[in-house]
Every structure is written in C-alpha cells, then in structure tokens.
C-alpha cells in the first residue's frame, strides 16, 4: 500500500515537473533535432539517392558503372524476374530461422523469467555474451563446427543419421542454423521482457480455475507473452530476410539469398540500378509482410 502511494506520488510530481515552466513548447523539437539530422543525412538522403538510382540505365557507350536517369521502371520487373528464386529463398530461410529461434528462445526466456531464481542475471548476461565477439568470427566458427573436422558431422555419421557422403557446410541447413544462432538473442530478450512481466498469480489463478499446465500455457501465458513473441519474431525475421553474411560464409551458390545478390550487383558487377531496385523490392515486401503480421497478431490490445 505504501509502495503504491509512493509510486502515485512520484507520478504526480513528474506531472507537475513538466508543467513547471522550465520547458517551452519548442523544447521537444529542439531535442529531436540531432536525431532528425542524423536520420536525414544517413537514412533519408541515401534512400532518396537509391530510389533515383533504381530507374537509371547505362550510358550508351559509357564506362562500366556510369548510369543516367531514364526513369526505366521496368528495372524493377527485370530485377525481380531474374532473382525471384533468391527472393523466395530469402523469405523461406528467414521464416525457418525465425521459427527455430522462437522454438529455442521461448523455453529459454520462460525458464529465465520464472525458474532461474538467483541465476536470472547471470543467464541474461550469457544470452547477450555472444555480442562480445564479432558477428563474422562467430559465423566463421560455425563453419568449423559443421565442417569435416568438427564433432557434429562424425557424430551424426556414426549414428547413421546422415549418410557418410553428406556434408553439412555449404548447405541450406548450415545457413539456417547460422541465422538461427546469430539472431537468437534478438528473439530471447523481448520474449524474456514480456514473460517476466506476467504476474505469476494469474498462472496460479488459472490453475485454481480448472486449467491444467498445458491449458494455462495456451490460455494465459502465451497470450500474455504475445507482445514479446511479435517483437522477437520481427527483430529476427527482418534482418534475417536481408542477411547475406550467413549465406556467404556457410552457404553455397545454391543457397544464395537476395542479400548476396544485392551485394554482388553493387560491388562486383557494378550494376547499381538492379541492386537499388532489388533493395527497394526487398524493403517493400518486408514492410507489407510485417504490416499484415502485426494486424493479425493484434498486439495493440495487449498492454
């Protein structure tokens, strides 16, 4: 009771603070200025640049890499038709990585939130620990783990789970596994935040009201953790769909994703318009998918 009273008095005092004349109505905009400036210079401007590049065509008789604006919208159709396989693969791999990451992260986050006790903070640090080393190094390490000299392949071969001739590197399996691993913390942290907020007494109440453990999970825990599920899947799916590092290091030409195509168009083939058109198509597709997903998940009702 005292605690509540204290909290509400805090709220009251913070309200009176904002009214107390130190701030003019312009202050919020001034505070926004540095961020807006940064976003404009490093996001809006390059995006606009990219947009206008996407409809350019090569200068007739010019050098490689010289393009002129001709508003050729067909660039988009050409780029998509040429690379629809990689597009499909990107979204398939991203979806698989998201599903696997969710499957691993949910029990993990649940255990940290409800069962870890004093170990809670240690486990949270362990979840974030991989960030202390480079993303590239860790992905290269996976190449070794899944390689012929690693312990995984001989182990699976001995158990006859994979044929003696099968390798794991340079495969779709390796790419999806790498992505699942790399994005796991992004899935775990929002899930943890959301599960940790659940009042354990609501779970007791559910048990008290004739729901067994599984039903309690389905009807109470899962719905209450939906904000975390939505945030985690978005934080995993969006970067995974555009990822090219995992496919480049752990994949083969057969597992090329759209990120790899964009990268090679930009830096190797110097085909800027196609690379720009692909980038925009990827962005638009992700935007549409995410919008539909958020609508379906209906998280705004869950606060």
């Amino acid at each position, binding site marked *: *009771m*005292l*605690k509540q009273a204290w909290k509400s008095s805090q709220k009251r005092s913070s309200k009176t603070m904002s009214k107390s004349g130190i701030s003019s109505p312009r202050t919020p905009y001034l505070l926004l200025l540095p961020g807006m400036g940064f976003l404009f210079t490093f996001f809006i401007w390059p995006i606009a640049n990219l947009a206008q590049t996407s409809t350019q065509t090569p200068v007739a008789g010019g050098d490689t890499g010289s393009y002129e604006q001709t508003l050729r919208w067909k660039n988009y159709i050409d780029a998509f038709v040429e690379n629809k396989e990689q597009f499909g693969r990107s979204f398939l791999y991203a979806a698989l990585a998201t599903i696997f990451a969710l499957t691993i992260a949910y029990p993990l986050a649940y255990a940290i939130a409800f069962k870890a006790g004093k170990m809670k903070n240690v486990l949270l640090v362990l979840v974030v620990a991989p960030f202390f080393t480079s993303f590239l190094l860790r992905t290269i390490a996976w190449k070794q783990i899944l390689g012929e000299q690693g312990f995984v392949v001989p182990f699976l071969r001995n158990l006859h789970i994979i044929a003696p001739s099968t390798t794991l590197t340079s495969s779709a399996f390796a790419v999806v596994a790498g992505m699942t691993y790399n994005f796991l913390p992004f899935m775990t942290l929002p899930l943890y935040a959301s599960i940790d907020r659940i*009042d354990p*007494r*609501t779970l*007791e*109440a*559910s*048990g*008290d*009201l*004739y*729901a*067994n453990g599984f*039903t309690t999970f389905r*009807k*109470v825990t899962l*719905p*209450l953790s939906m904000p975390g599920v939505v945030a985690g899947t978005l934080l995993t799916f969006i970067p995974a769909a555009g990822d090219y590092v995992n496919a480049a290091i752990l994949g083969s030409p057969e597992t090329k994703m759209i990120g790899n195509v964009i990268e090679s168009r930009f830096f190797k083939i110097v085909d800027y318009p196609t690379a720009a058109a692909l980038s925009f198509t990827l962005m638009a597709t992700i935007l549409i998918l995410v919008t539909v997903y958020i609508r379906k998940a209906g998280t705004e*009702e*869950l*606060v």
Partner: protein
Amino acid sequence: MAEKTSIHGDLRLSNITKSYGDFTAVNDLSLTIPEGSFFALLGPSGCGKTTTLRMVAGLEEPTRGTISLGNTDITFTKPYQRPINTVFQNYALFPHLTIFENIAFGLRRRGIKDVKEQVDKALELVELSHLAGRKPTQLSGGQQQRIALARAIVNRPALLLLDEPLGALDLKLRRQMQIELKWIQKEVGLTFVHVTHDQEEAMTMADTIAVMNEGEIEQLGSPADLYDNPKTAFVANFLGQSNLIKGTISGNDGDNHIVDLFGQKISLAKNRSHAVDNSIYAGIRPEKFRISRLSTPTSGNLLSGGKIEDVSYIGVSTQYQVLMPWGQELMVFEQNDDAVAPFSVGEDVNISWESGFTFALRGDEDAEAGMEVEPEEIIEDDE
C-alpha cells in the same frame, strides 16, 4: 468432471505441518470447517494463515498431515482437480481477457459450452453487468475485487477461499464490501474460508474465527466468544484491546474465585478462568470499565486509588488512561451518553465493572503478546 462437483462436505485439516527448511510456517494444525459456514482465519503477518489457505487451494503441499473434503482426501491433488476456488489477494484477473471471459474461464475449462446465462447471473450478483465487455485494467479496485469474486463463485465450488480480499481497498469501500460479501455468502450458500489480519473484518463477517499465531491456532470460536472470553493474552490483545492486571487467586466464593490484585479483592467467575494455578492475569475490556468520582456509590468489582492521566475525546466515546497505585495505566472507554461531567487530568477516581465481565489468563503469559502489530506493516509484508 461430474465427480468433481460431487465432492462436498466439511473441510478437515488433520495435523497439517508446513516447513520451509528450518522455518515452520504451520505447525501441527487440525481444524474442521463445517459445510456452509463463513469461517475466518485471523492473525498477524507470518502467522501461517495464508500458507494454510494455499495448502487448501492446492498451491502448496503440506510437509505432513492430510486435508480432506467430505470423505475425499485431497492432500495431493492438483489445484485444477479440486472443487475449490480462490479470490486472490490482488485479484489476479487475466489482463488479456474481457470481464465476461474472465468469469467464464473456469466454466469453459470444465467443458461447459453455454456459459452466458451463468456468467450473466454472476455479474448480476456483484451488480456489474454493464462492465462485461471491459478489460480488468479499466476497472477500479472495488470493481476488480467483485469480478474476482464473481469469477470464483460462478463455478459453485464446494469451498471458496478468500485471501485478504479487501486488503487493497480503502476503509469505506472495505466496510461496504464486508456487508456485501456476507450477504452473497448467505445468498449462494457456499462455504467461505476468509484469511485476514483485520480483526474487525473477521468479526463482522465470520460465523467462526480461528485466531492464528506462529503457525498454530490460539483459539477458535464465535466472534462474541473470542472477544468476551479470550483464552490467551495474544487473543485478548489482538482482538480488540484488553487491560491485563497481574494477580493471585486468594480464595473461593461459590462459583467465583476471589482474586487479589495488588491488595484489592475482586471476584472472577470460575468458568471464565483459563489459569492453571493461582497466578493469573485478570482481564477486563476497556469499555466494560466505569469511572466514578470517589463519592459515587458503585456496584460489582471496584479498584480504588486511580488518577486520570490522559483524556482523549473521540466523539462517541472518551478514552481515559487511569494510573493505578501499583503503577499500571488502565485504559477506559466511556460512552458520552450520560450527564456526568467529563473527568479531567489529575482527578482522583475509582474504577468499577460488573464482575461477570472479568476473564483470567495464565499468570506466566506475556501480557503484551499480540499488541505490537501494525496493520499497515502487515499489508506490506504479505505482498
């Protein structure tokens, strides 16, 4: 599902002990709660009342002992298998469900398809039908409390457990809900087991109160029994206030003991004494005392030589602290209903009371047991 609802009857706790490591929360507790009664477990923070309730609900397992409902042993059955529902301390409503779905939750889990009629009835009972479509966060504390009650009652459990259900409400709302709860209990005819640290709440609502202290039941009885004739100093002090005066039984007079209180003789009914030998504490409730000027004739027991130390005017009554010759201050509540002019500080007075109101406790008790408990602290601790 059918066998679930068919379990009913008296709730019987037999030799229940619950230990956490070295700490014993509930110690060898035996208790029978008759079907259909309104029963209160009353005690300060940490007395084991909530632990007892959680064991009945199935949220904790007793270390030793058995719990049975009617003829069925339910000691180790899961909460969802017991025909028992709980109104939780902070309500624990499901924040993602509407009020209607909150109340329908238990019915749906038991596979009842047509829940509308029963949910509507429960909402009517708590007079909140108009809120069916809202979410719990849009309700006030008092409304949430009633929804928590409706959510439990709708299942028609054999036993309804209430864990400090009014603790988070303000005083006025608490009084109102006490009366409503009592009315609802009569209306639905279920067995209510109510855990509280608020003695007034327990006395207003319950037919039978068990006063708990340090994992054991100190005394069990009707509110009037407990108040008029407490068995221990803890009960005498925790349930209202008491004046406990050290004394010795010095003789007998028919059904009464003659008691010597620092040289003054009073009489005490033998059947109101819980003492084991001649050393006693004589107990008198402050409102049973009468103060009189030295010249005024008195009846019943009399203690003379008092001096008014402090006067506080409360409105309905005036509270006096009277210093006795042996150095003890006695508390006296006087109704402001007579023409006697109020006494003033320093006045010499006598104290008298009808001898039937005296009770006696064992002389080796701690006269201050149960006194130092602050209700506000209890709420904090329980959370």
